[in-house]
């Protein structure tokens, strides 16, 4: 067992992990952050996507020990400070971008990474970016619309700020 410590959603946490402990296990089992899901064992589905040092990664394909000293953000860290839904979360509700909700945390985390690097993605770019996120409920239609809507809202806010 080794001790790891990292910042998760802005809070410093630490714990004892085995070498084989995956980041997703540490988040779910040690920290109780069960919003990050496990939907496959071959790194395809993306239900476990979180941000490590600002980049989206699959928490099922990274060891907890490898995240030692990192800044991690999960779905639990995506709401506004007052607890209201963040822009992406709100856009998913407004546009019915989720049904069973299981893929949703990964979708949100992946989309957030996209909008950070590409604030005005085309429909084709959004669909292409979601290559690592599977959804079985929505046919992706409303997920794409949700991300488009979030991008528009963010653009509006940044223009208003200028």
């Amino acid at each position, binding site marked *: 067992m080794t001790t790891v410590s990292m910042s998760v959603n802005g809070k410093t946490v630490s714990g004892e992990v085995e070498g084989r402990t995956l980041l997703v296990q540490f988040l779910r089992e040690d920290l109780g952050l069960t*919003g990050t899901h496990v939907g496959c064992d071959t790194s395809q589905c993306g239900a476990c996507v979180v941000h490590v040092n600002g980049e989206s990664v699959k928490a099922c394909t990274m060891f907890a020990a490898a995240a030692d000293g990192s800044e991690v953000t999960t779905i639990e860290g995506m709401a506004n400070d007052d607890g209201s839904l963040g822009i992406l979360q709100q856009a998913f509700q407004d546009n019915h971008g989720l049904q*069973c909700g299981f893929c949703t945390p990964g979708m949100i985390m992946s989309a957030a990474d996209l909008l950070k690097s590409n604030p005005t993605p085309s429909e084709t770019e959004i669909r292409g970016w979601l290559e690592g996120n599977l959804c079985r409920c929505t046919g992706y239609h409303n997920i794409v619309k949700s991300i488009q809507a979030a991008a528009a809202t963010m653009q509006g806010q940044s223009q208003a700020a200028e």
Partner: protein
Amino acid sequence: MPKDTGIGASSKRREDIRFLTGKGQYTDDINRPGQTYAYILRSDIAHGVINGIDTGAASAMPGVIRVFTSADMEGLGGVPCGWQVTDKNGDPMKEPMHPILAAGKVRHVGDPIAVVVGETLDQARDAAEKIELDITELPAVMDMASAIQGGAAVHDDVPDNLCFDWEFVAENKDAVDAAIAGAHHVTTLELTNNRLVANPMEPRAAIGEFEPGTGDYTLYTTSQNPHVIRLLMGAFVLSIPEHKLRVVAPDVGGGFGSKIYHYAEEAFVTWAAAQIKRPIKWVADRSEDFISAAQGRDHVTKVELAMDAYGNFLALRCSTLANMGAYLSTFAPCVPTWLHGTLLAGNYKTPVIFTNVKAVFTNTVPVDAYRGAGRPEATYQLERTIDKAAREMGIDPIELRRRNFIQPDQYPYATPVAVEYDTGNYDATMSKAAEMADVAGFQGRKAASAANGKLRGLGIASYIEACGIAPSSLVGALGARAGLFECATVRVNPTGNISVFTGSHSHGQGHETTFAQVVADMVGCPEENVDIVHGDTSKIAFGMGTYGSRSLAVGGAAIVKSMEKIIAKASKIAAHLMEASADDVVFKDGQFSVQGTDKSVAWGDVCLTAYVPHNFPHDQLEPGLEETSFYDPANFTYPAGAYICEVEVDPDTGVVDVQSFVAADDFGNVVNPMIVEGQVHGGLAQGLGQAMMEHAVYDENGQIASGSFMDYAMPRAADFPMFEVDHSCNTPCTHNPLGVKGCGEAGAIGSPPALVNAVVDALAERGVTHIDMPLTPARVWSALNG
């Protein structure tokens, strides 16, 4: 003007808040005090005799609490089947024992052999590697056609591997044969409906718990219907009476049929928790679900359609081999029979129809209902064959369908396959779809594609389905071992807010929002004053669950019935308060008033009176305001529609690019258009996934070649364009109080033939007449290159 609340409004989903913030509670998110972990050792061969299982070394491994095999489970029942089909000779289907853990033989890759329960999952898995198996491998029974000729048998007591040989409608057989023999033209098509894996994004999971102090059992499970699991598992497997068994289906990450069934793992964790006196958690990883969760479809069918010179359909004859897999899953026998044969009239006036279905055991994972269940298979046969017929007859495929559509003035319409359609307008949805798809402009687009070296095709499909499953007396006569009503309790609390307890579990469908809209509409209150509770047998009186697009048509109707009782009682209380006759009281927008006067009393005051009954008609009524209803539908509902798919095929690679997809559906009345459209989108993606890429492939030894997401192609966002959906051509259902028909499965039913028809249309100029699904690039390229 769209409404902003109640029935007809696209109310935002309340359940989204917890899912969007990571606060959902799926089964794997639940941990019980003292919890242990189960690892299941599964067969890695498809067929074999178990000579011995030595668990000694495994039992001695660190952290192991106990190792279980079938020898420990004597006296327990097998996993039951919930539907009995009677074969053409009047004999019951063959129903071999399905033990919780393999006994005597293993019958498919993934068949559970032993379970290690340990302090941690890793310890349990480490120990499972120490179990010594002595198994003699047998030839795998894989090909259905040869399986029924004898040879190796999956079950020794079913030597020909034939579960049943079913004919429908037997009395029509001669008439169909005669019509085909004398027809102007007969179109024949042999096709395969490819085996699929449902793959909801949440894999299956179960936690069993036993309270020694009270003898109470609790099962948390990924189920679409907790009460059905309680009934099947309690009564038939473990002999636990209902009052000592609680089944909780918390948030469930999609089901699509695969979480209807009672699975061996549920029975195991529940039973074993009492053996070790500690909770046991089991969570499938995805690879495990690929070899243990019920799969879908897998029919091989020959279709013959007889026509006169004008293209009028004279008769339809089908014969199908339906794969059951190694054991009968809960509803497996009804899928290729009553959910399939009864839909073979489609949207058409075909006067006589006959089908023969042989259900076959093979050494594969059990097959059961998957989104659509039998209706996609029927629709695919029909719509592919009609498309081929149109080409052979030189008739436009839309026109050929129109010539045979049942007409609006013919309802109620009794088909020759035992169902009666209540309403519909197939011309209207076809016209709407053709307009949305700009069918008129297709030739121009085809020419443009040709100029780029691409082949463009247009695919048409109509569909009809039987939903709102189903009248209990009817399904009972057809072999169902349960009723198919739904139950709802409406509890009006003292201050007027409302808790609704429904048997319709929600795992993505948005019941918590839609049902609240219905109730709020009836009361005239804000939707947030209504809470919907589902998924726990200790809270809900009873329930038959969510499948067959039945939740609103049956479960919603039960809520309406309870609400009607509530309003009737509340009206009497209001009458008492207003010193009027209950007959004169009307209820509207949250106010009870006496007709022709200015007397009124508010909903909230009446509710409070029901619980603070100081001034109350005690001589007529009991205090309180809570009602339960069991709604049993009078008929199925019949959603129908027209789908048009346009594709561009790259002949160099065989890649199919979906350029547009149009769906014009008739779902009857719509409560939440946003949710209905979302259901269609999802169904389309699953249907197009089946048509384009999904395939559970087994090799000749019974090994699954597509046993993970590395090889089983799941549809991704880039595989589709934006879908165009419409539900404006609606003919309300005539026999349920909401006039709704159901929308959950339509997309998966109508889209496979639309896609395949489009690709065949694109390739027709190159001589291609049919390609079996999935239309992968490799298959399309092979079809083009002989």
